[in-house]
């Protein structure tokens, strides 16, 4: 799927002059997302203004499944590239915001926010004359039947952020992908954190038992030394002499970089 393009054929949009989306997404967050659609705007309106468009995989878009979050930067660049082609391939599927602007020829400026729906937009923000790209306004298309005042917009942006973070959390917690519903996911996360904390407690007791059972200080120094060296053992790095440490070393030659193992539970037993 190449195009991040919006399939808006019924945009009641206007000529783009300049629009930016700097406020919704903090600049440090997704640098790849904000792209410049300069050529696009230029082609359509005949003006050479710079315009920045953010292309997101909007939640209401048809193309959402096709796009993945990670390719946002790619999408932006490809969108810029395609900008010049847009006028040519003006099928309903490939019409961009700019394309639809052609139809109306107003003097409004729109920016598509994340939650903008595909069809039948109902409201738009105030127009803006041509200005430098860095704006402090965010012009957002609203869904049909949804309010467009500032509070709801801010609310919506905030909710988007929250759901995005919930998604990352879902990826972290194993087994959370299948659960649907914010409350259940939260419960799952809470259970996971609690189980991790119990595990820490249990393991600390176990380590304490290990300590009281055998006097491991020399070996642990070797452990630390190996750790700090963080190089594969080859027998010449021996700086400890206790039996356990020697066992560890011999066993670890097969797998010297145990620290870099990805699977936590796959630690090989050496003896």
């Amino acid at each position: 799927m190449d195009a991040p393009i919006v399939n808006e054929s019924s945009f009641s949009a206007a000529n783009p002059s300049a629009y930016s989306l700097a406020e919704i997404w903090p600049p440090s967050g997704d640098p790849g997302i904000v792209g410049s659609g300069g050529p696009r705007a230029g082609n359509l309106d005949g003006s050479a203004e710079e315009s920045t468009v953010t292309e997101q995989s909007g939640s209401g878009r048809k193309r959402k499944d096709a796009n993945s979050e990670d390719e946002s930067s790619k999408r932006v660049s490809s969108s810029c590239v395609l900008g010049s082609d847009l006028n040519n391939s003006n099928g309903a599927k490939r019409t961009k915001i700019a394309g639809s602007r052609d139809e109306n020829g107003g003097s409004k400026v729109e920016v598509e926010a994340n939650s903008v729906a595909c069809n039948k937009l109902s409201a738009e923000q105030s127009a803006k004359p041509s200005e430098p790209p860095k704006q402090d306004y965010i012009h957002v298309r609203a869904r049909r039947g949804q309010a467009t005042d500032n509070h709801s917009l801010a609310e919506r942006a905030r909710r988007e952020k929250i759901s995005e973070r919930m998604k990352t959390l879902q990826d972290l917690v194993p087994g959370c992908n299948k659960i649907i519903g914010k409350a259940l996911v939260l419960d799952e996360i809470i259970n996971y954190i609690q189980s991790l904390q119990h595990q820490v407690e249990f393991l600390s007791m176990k380590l304490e038992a290990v300590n009281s059972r055998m006097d491991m200080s020399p070996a642990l120094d070797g452990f630390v030394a190996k750790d700090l060296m963080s190089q594969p053992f080859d027998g010449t790095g021996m700086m400890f002499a206790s039996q356990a440490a020697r066992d560890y070393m011999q066993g670890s030659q097969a797998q010297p970089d145990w620290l870099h193992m990805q699977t936590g539970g796959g630690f090989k037993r050496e003896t």
Partner: protein
Amino acid sequence: MAPEDPVTVSPPPPPPPPTPSLKTKIARRFVKSLAEVWTSRKLATEGGVRKRARRIKIAAYSSMARAVGGSRRAWSRALLAKLQGRAKRRCHLRSQRCLGLKRKRAGSRNMVRNEVSGSDKLRRLVPGGKAMDLCNLLEETSHFVQCLATQVKVMQSIADRYSV
């Protein structure tokens, strides 16, 4: 593997990783503090099992918080503050045998139990979560979960290594 000439040819040392991974950082710090706990004779014998285990647990949490850069994350700051506060209070208690401070924790625990909701529970679990809005809370939670899982893995590996 082809036999190498020990004198002339030796494989070039692998370049050090650009930044140590989270697991490495946590492992190093934890092992150091664990060695410290283990080798301190005074601590090794005193107290009961629980006290010694708690010391290790505290070492685990503090090493985890330090490994991510003590003040870079809100949760690590809060965690370190909590641990230091508790350490101070414990010394205080020991020196003065004052029971007045102990009731503070019990009271607050009873109070909250009735009005618990999803995000409240999460706020209690994540250090420093009480004073954050939901958005930041979720971000801190994800980082915290990551580090906690790594810490558990490290501890598990060490325990496996040294246990029978």
